[in-house]
């Protein structure tokens, strides 16, 4: 119980906490945290799989028409694959994993990820990755992101992104 330490100017009792109050409160605070932590374990599931796919990008569609211009960037999602495709030049489209290894946050153009100065810039903390997915100096992430093989037919305005392991060659072009 708090102890009385006198009266204030309004004549009301002033209660001062005792050492026992402090101990009780500290224990209670710790217990509340322990309760919540123990009651709620972390769990997660990601829908879809990472199987082999040939993802077709129709640059005439509203989903991928940003890739018609050099520097354009578009989100590509299929199963558990989460990529961005970038029109890096008139004749080339590249595809990169859009999950930044720094904090596993998304690098989507819909929330501010951009292709600038030949690098993909994470909108969250500014990490930068080159066309092969390697982190550039100054990035908070020291890890690279995966890159994927892309076949691009500029005349037909179509590209195919190859993801997954069943492909005979799904490594990025060197």
């Amino acid at each position, binding site marked *: *119980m*708090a102890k009385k330490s006198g009266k204030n100017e309004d004549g009301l009792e002033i*209660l001062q*906490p005792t050492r026992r*109050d*402090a101990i*009780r*409160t500290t*224990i*209670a*605070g710790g*217990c*509340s*945290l*322990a*309760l*919540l*932590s123990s*009651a*709620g*374990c*972390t*769990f*997660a*599931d*990601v*829908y*879809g*799989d*990472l199987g082999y796919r040939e993802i077709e990008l129709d640059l005439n569609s*509203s*989903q991928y028409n*940003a890739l018609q211009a050099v520097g354009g*960037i578009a989100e590509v*999602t299929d199963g*558990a694959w*989460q990529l961005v495709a970038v029109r890096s030049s008139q004749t080339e489209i590249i595809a990169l994993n859009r*999950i930044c290894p720094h*904090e*596993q*946050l*998304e690098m*989507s*153009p*819909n*929330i*501010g*990820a*951009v292709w600038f100065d030949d690098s993909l810039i994470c*909108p969250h903390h500014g990490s930068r990755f080159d066309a092969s997915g390697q982190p550039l100096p100054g990035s908070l992430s020291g890890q690279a992101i995966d890159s994927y093989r892309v076949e691009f037919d500029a005349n037909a305005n179509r590209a195919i992104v190859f993801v997954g*392991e069943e492909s005979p060659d799904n490594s990025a072009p060197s």
Partner: protein
Amino acid sequence: MKILWICVWLLTGLVSVANATPRMALPAGSPCATCHFSPTGGGARNEVGYGSMGRTGAFDFRLFDSNQVVEDRLAMGYNIRIQYAHFGIPVRERNQSGEESISIPEPKAIPMQVQINAGATLIDGVTISGSYNAGPNSYDGKLCDPVFPGMSCFELSVQAQSDTGWSARAGMMQPHIGIRPDDHTTLLRGDAAYPRQPVIPPNYAEWGGEIGYQPKSWFRTEVGAFHTDNLDQSLNQGTKSSDLWPAAYAVRITFLPRITLGGAQDSDDDFDDFDAPPPSPPIGINTWLGASIYGSNEFYIANAFVGAGLQNGLESRLEASHSERNESYSNSSISLSTTYAIKDWLVPALRIERGVTDAIQKSNTWQFIGGIEFFLMPGVEIRPEYRVTKTDRYIFGQTTVQLHIFH
């Protein structure tokens, strides 16, 4: 199990040093300006606000008796929030042998908010208030360092209130958009396709002006005009998705009727019968009913809200929002939240939200958040929560803890 019950008992029974202070006055019928200098809430607390929260704590160990730097003229304070959570999203990975697993981001503790604020009474009825929010790189000299696009690193506004019910304010401030939340992860201001990325970011503010009118205690309206610099940052960073005018409009209408049930006036008791038991006290229910719209050219966000609060500390709110960036990108969200103040320093809270983003691809997101607002001592709140986020791509449940130190 025995340890668990001991903890529950300690938590609810033994911590007995507390003051009976009013809290959650807003959902129970009082405007934000009852406790804050700013009519939209947040930032510097006035004498009533400090008198309320400055005395709320399981352990009445006060570092400060007042936030008044100059008595009745200048108040100063701060808000520091340290958040411990897994900030990223789960990702499916495949190792070299072809086995798939789920990678969960490492939990981190970050200073989510470092704010200093002040409010001053210039003359009777005229106040000025402001706040400054430091960012992660402010200590390296980048004084204005917003974490989210469109976030403002400061607010500064002058408010004038007359006896006739008219009020006006001008400056860098947040427009009235539904109910200003104290959790920026709410889907009401977010995007169901990217739950971590708000449409209206925390500490959003624009240069502008607003006129308010409250002719009765149960009715209030605000009409304002604001610049759209930060809104443009929020909506159009990276890809241009919303064509905005240089100015935005904001309108909010709120009804705040108080309903009284039972009590002496409804009693048929014979007052000459001194042996009769005393009449039961009336039950007061403060309610909210309102709507707002904030927009500029292609973009608008419309909110509708209803809330009710009982004097015993139980309150519940339902809010819905709909925003459109352009003709092919819209968000609709609904949020139901309930809190119950077991003690003024111990408040379990529950929130359920659903958001739908209708764009090239439709996205559905659910959020379930249960937690406790635990005021350890005046100016120190610990908020452990359990959060489940379910999107079309993943489900993620985690415990988070926020330490909120304020004055």
